[in-house]
C-alpha cells in the first residue's frame, strides 16, 4: 500500500486537484481519511469565521507601540539637530583663538605667560581673555612674573 499522503497532497485532494493515485489512497487509508475529515472540518470553521465575522479593530493611537515610535522619532530629531549644530559651530572661525592658548597656559601652574594675550584685539575677542588678563595683573602685583630673567619684553623683569 502507498505511504500516507503528505499535508500538501491532502490539501490538493480537498481542493479537487489531487492526483488519481492520492484519491485512491484516501479511499482505502483510515488514517488519511481521518486527517482529510479533520481538514474539511477546519476549513469549514475557517470559512464560516471569515464570511460571518467582519472584524472591528481597536486602534491604539497614543499608547503602546505608537507612543514608543513618537518618542524615538523625537529623540532622533533632537540628536540630529545637536550634531548639526555642533558641526556648524566647529566649522566657523574661532575668534580669539590665541587667547584660548594663553588662558590654558595661565591655568597651568608655573607655565610661561605670553604677551600676545594682552593685545587689545585678542583680549576683547576671546571668551577666556578677561580671565587671563586678570590672572596676569594679579601676578604682576605679586611679582614673580618673569619667565626668563632680564627679558626686556616682559614688563617688570628688567
Amino acid at each position: 500500500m502507498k505511504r500516507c499522503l503528505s499535508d500538501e497532497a491532502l490539501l490538493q485532494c480537498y481542493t479537487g486537484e489531487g492526483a488519481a493515485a492520492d484519491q485512491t489512497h484516501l479511499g482505502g487509508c483510515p488514517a488519511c481519511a481521518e486527517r482529510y475529515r479533520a481538514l474539511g472540518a477546519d476549513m469549514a470553521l475557517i470559512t464560516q469565521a471569515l464570511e460571518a465575522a467582519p472584524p472591528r479593530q481597536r486602534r491604539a493611537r497614543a499608547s503602546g507601540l505608537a507612543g514608543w515610535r513618537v518618542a524615538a522619532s523625537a529623540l532622533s530629531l533632537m540628536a540630529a539637530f545637536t550634531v548639526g549644530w555642533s558641526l556648524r559651530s566647529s566649522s566657523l572661525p574661532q575668534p580669539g583663538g590665541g587667547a584660548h592658548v594663553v588662558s590654558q597656559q595661565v591655568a597651568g601652574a608655573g607655565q610661561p605667560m605670553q604677551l600676545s594675550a594682552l593685545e587689545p584685539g585678542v583680549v576683547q575677542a576671546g571668551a577666556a581673555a578677561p580671565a587671563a588678563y586678570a590672572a596676569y595683573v594679579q601676578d604682576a602685583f605679586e611679582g614673580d612674573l618673569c619667565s626668563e630673567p632680564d627679558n626686556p619684553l616682559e614688563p617688570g623683569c628688567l
Partner: protein
Amino acid sequence: MATVSALLAEQDDFRDIYAQHQARVLRLCRLLLSDSDEAEETAQEIFLKAFRSYRSGQRPEAWNKWLTTVTVNACRDRRRSSWWKRWRGRTEEFNEFRDPDHGHGSAEDEVLRRETYKLVWGSFSKLSARQKEVFALRHLEGWSTEEVAAQLGLSTGSVKQHLFRAVHELRKGIGKDL
C-alpha cells in the same frame, strides 16, 4: 464625492449589478484589508468606478470577474497608501463581531464561537498579502488555480504553495496543527 446610493437613484439599471455583487465585494475587501471601515470605503470606491465604467458604456462581459479584479487591485493600492495608519500602530485585537445570523446558542457556545472567530481573524490578518489574496480567491471566491495564477501573475505551483501555507497558518492559529 457622490455616494453610491445617490448614483443608484440616478441609474436604475445599475442597481441590479450593485445588489448582486455588493456583499461579495465588501467581504473580499474585508478579507484583503482586515479592517471593516477601510473595507467599506474601498467597496464604495469600487462601485463608483464600476458605475463610471457602466455609464461610459464600457461594460464587461462578466461583472463578477471584473469586480473581483478591480477589488484585488483596489485593496492592494489601499494597503500601500495606508502606511500612515500602520505607522500609528494598532492592536491585533478584534473586539467586535457583527454577526446577526448567530447568537441563538447558549452563552457558552457564543463565547466559544467568538473566541474561535477571533483566532481565525487574528491568524488571517497575519498572513502575507499574497497569501490572503490566494486564499480569498481560490477558497472563498471559488476561482480555479489557473485563474488565480493569471490574475495575480503567479505560476500555478506558486499559487498552490501560497494556499498551502495560508491553510497551514490558519489551522495552526486555531490550534489544529497539521
